[in-house]
Structure formats: C-alpha cells, structure tokens
C-alpha cells in the first residue's frame, strides 16, 4: 500500500565527500508518505551524514534531493540557492542525538521559537500550538522550565515537540536515544511510536533494533556509504540475505 503512493522524498545518486573520504557513494532512496524508514549499520558508515544531507545541514557533493514538489540538484558547479534550502528545511523537522535545546529559553519558548522567528507568527497565536505539542509529548507541566532542569529524556521530548510545532512533512531522527541513560530511552521511543502510528513520515537513524522491528515499515542496512540491503523488518532481522547484514545483526542482537 505504501509503495504505490507518490513518494514524498526522492534521493537520486547522492554523493558526499569529506576531503578525500567518500562517505556517501551514490545513494538513491524514495520514501512514501506515512512511511517509517529506519537506517541501521555500524557507526561511520554514512547514516547520519545521509540524514543531515536531507535538510542540507550537510552539503551533498553531488546528486539530487526531491522533497514534495521541490527538487534540489547539487553538483561540482551547482550550489543550491538559499531559498531552496530554506524551503526544504521548512518541510523537515530534525531531532538530534544531543537534543540541542536552546538553554536560554524555557520549554515553551523552545517549542514556539521556530513559529515566532521563522514563520513570523504572533506569540499569542503560537502559544496554543506550543501547548498542544508539549502536551503531545507529555510535558505540558514543564512549559516554563529551562532545559537545565529537565532530564535527558524530557529534553529529547521537548526537542521532538519543537520540531513537530513547525508541522513538517517529514521528521528526521538522528540517533535520538543514543545520548540517553538506558532508563530514559523508553519514554522517547514511546513518543516516536505514537508519531509513527499517527502516520508521520519518519526517517530514523537508530541503534534501537527493538524499535525498528516494531515500528519500521522498512529497515535499511547501510555499510561503507552504500545501502547493502533493505526490506520489511521481519525480513531484514530474521532472514538477511547479505553476509555483512548477518554479521552486523549477530553482533547487535
């Protein structure tokens, strides 16, 4: 059902070089609306770089990225226009491993910052939206608290609310639970599971295999800057075809 829909993300032949390091080697990827894609693999194989290229936090070296009706093509003599990058970023929400909440703002201010500063929404109009999303991640009572007073899990939930408040078409998660103490991982994964159930389009880089097998529509195993294997979680986890996937899964499961 998912595969028949018009894709919301279409990445074509994406390359990324860091100096002489060829980090992404011609990645092509399509994501359907409402699809949850989880990318797994050893660290340093380009998963996060790919995710960060999707909203141009990292400048791809060449290739094209299409999001919705927008297409941005990048090449040696082809830099994207700032307006193109802006348009892409408005359509994507990003959640970071290190949360990156703004420490000088309360939870509420963090959540409405994008609405007020980027979308120029009057504060009175933004606050009900902030309340809605803080409530969604179960932290409405922390609205006037600064991040320093929040646990890691709470910080990440506020960060998710901050991204959601911009009502992006796609949510990008860059190892959202890797910086958390084990007992705090569950609360963040629960929020993400709710989002997936509601039909949020999500691209997730994660080491949480339990989450991937429960929530993902598709799991992609990445190695050395390439997609090695992809498919529904049960297929990847119980019946991987590539020896590299097998080897990786034996080590993490």
């Amino acid at each position, binding site marked *: 059902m998912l595969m028949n829909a018009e894709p919301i993300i279409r990445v074509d032949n994406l390359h990324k070089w860091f100096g002489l390091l060829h980090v992404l080697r011609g990645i092509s990827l399509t994501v359907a609306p409402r699809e949850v894609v989880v990318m797994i693999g050893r660290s340093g194989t380009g998963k996060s770089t790919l995710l960060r290229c999707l*909203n141009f*936090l990292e400048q791809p070296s060449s290739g094209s990225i299409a999001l919705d009706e927008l297409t941005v093509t990048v090449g040696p003599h082809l830099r994207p226009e700032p307006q193109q990058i*802006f348009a892409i*970023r*408005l359509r*994507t*929400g*990003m959640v*970071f491993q*290190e949360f*990156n*909440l*703004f*420490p*000088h703002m*309360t939870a509420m201010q963090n959540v409405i*910052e*994008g609405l007020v*500063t*980027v979308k120029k929404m009057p504060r009175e109009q933004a606050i009900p939206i902030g309340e809605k999303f803080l409530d969604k991640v179960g932290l409405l009572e922390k609205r*006037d*608290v*600064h*991040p*320093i*007073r929040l646990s890691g899990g709470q910080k990440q939930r506020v*960060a998710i609310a*901050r*991204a959601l408040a*911009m009502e992006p078409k796609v949510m990008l998660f860059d190892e959202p639970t890797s910086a958390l103490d084990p007992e705090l991982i569950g609360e963040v994964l629960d929020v993400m599971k709710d989002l997936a159930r509601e039909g949020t389009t999500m691209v997730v880089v994660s080491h949480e295999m339990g989450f991937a097998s429960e929530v993902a529509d598709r799991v992609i195993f990445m190695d050395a800057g390439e997609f090695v294997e992809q498919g529904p979680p049960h297929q990847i986890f119980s019946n991987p075809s590539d020896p590299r996937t097998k080897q990786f899964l034996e080590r993490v499961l």
Partner: protein
Amino acid sequence: MAEVDPDLNTGLQLLADQRRARLIRTTKIGTVWIILIVLLIMVLLLTNVEPAYMADHYGIVLQGLMTTIEISLISIVIASFLALFGALGRLSQNSIAQGISGFYVSILRGTPLLIQIYIIYLGLPQIGVAIIKLGYPTIGNLFILDAVPSGILALSLNYGAYMTEIFRAGLQAVGHGQREAAEALGMTRWQTLRRIILPQAIRIIIPDIGNQFIAMQKDSALVSIMGVWEITYLANRFARHDIKFMEMFLVAAAMYWFLTIVSSWLQNWLERRMAHAYER
C-alpha cells in the same frame, strides 16, 4: 524526631568546622591587608607627605572622577559594538569582512594607545584642514575633534580591537549544535545569531568585558595629556602648581583603586547572576 540519622550530627559538626576554618582564614588575610596599609601610611608620614594637604585638595580631584567614569563607560559600550562587528568579521566567510576586521585588529593592537590618542587628537585635524581647503568644510570638520571625543574614540577603537578576540572566542564557545538546531528550524544566519548564539555568548563574554572595563578606567588616565579634566589631569595640575607630587598622585591612585574595587564587586555580582541563569 524518631527518624533522625545518627550520622547527621557528625555531618553538622564537619560543616561547622569547615565554616570556622574559612572564617579564620578570611580574618587573617584581612589583618595582613590592614597591617600593610598601616605600614604604607607610616612610611609616607616619615617622608613628610602632608595628609592635611591631601584632605584639602582631594575634592578637586574628585571632580575628575565623574569624567573618568563617563569616558570609560561610553568607550566600553562603543568598544563592545566594535568588538562584536570585529568578531563577526573574523568569523565570516566573506573575504572583505575578514580582511577589514583583521586589518583593524592588527593595527590597533600593534600600536601604543598613546600614539593613537596623538594621531586622533593632533593628527586628524591636519587631514580635516586639507579637506576644508578642498572645499568640503562639513566633511573636514568631522576630522577635527575636541579632547573628550578624541579620547573616547581612541579608547573605543583600541579596546574594540582587543575585545574582538574576546567576542570571537565567546561566539565560538556556543556549541555547534545550537547553530544546527536553529538552521534546521529554517532560521537565517542573522536570526540564528540574534536569537540563539548572541544571548548565550553574552553570558560567556560578560566577565571579560568587566575585566576590560576595569583596565580601561586606568588607561583613560592617558586622555589627561589632551587636557581633559579627569582624575589624572587634575591631580597633575595641582601637584605641579604646589609641588605636592606624592600627595596629589596618591589621591589620584586611591580614586582609581576605589573605582576598581567597586567595579570588581559589580562584576562579581553580575557573574554570579549569569552563572545561575536559566536555572528555573
């Protein structure tokens, strides 16, 4: 009362001991200061310094205190803006901005403040006169500055150059993730700077601005060479007139010292406030 931890008394005892030890040390340090001041006064009295003259004339020097504070305050504010733009220039991708700010910092850190004051006060009018002769009196007159504006300009430019490095370090100290989070929300560079980076950088920079302000209060003594009626000029004038050098310069020194102590208190208070920011 039944639930009291029997070890609590030990803890309280240790805490009280620590507090007493700290009090004793503070008292000892204070005593040393008092002894040193008394010794200093004794030496001065032996060398026939006249306290009576000092008492009679300190009021005159005090009139210069306000001028010193005024010049320093205005200059530190202007210097902070210059430093902000200097730092943005140094961190910019733009070669012109980088070149200009690098040039500015290099020249003003590479020459003595005294020479800068001479150039601005005595040198610039030469350019001004030349421009007036060319037939542009309004522009020419801009180069002919009174003593106080000259002093403020020199101090601002000079300190702005030193503080550029402080601001650069402060801006860089804000984590890279902050910029990325802002950009991911769709903020422009300018919005990111104004809403996210600067508010955090200021809290890092404030203690250093305090140090620069304290240093500047004393460097402002150099503007006395232009005849500005601040602390040093007034002290010098009466010292020469009455041949009471030790007396008048001691008065001036005491005033700068007092100013510095008050400024340090203010700085400590500000720093403590900054340290406890966002703890709600």
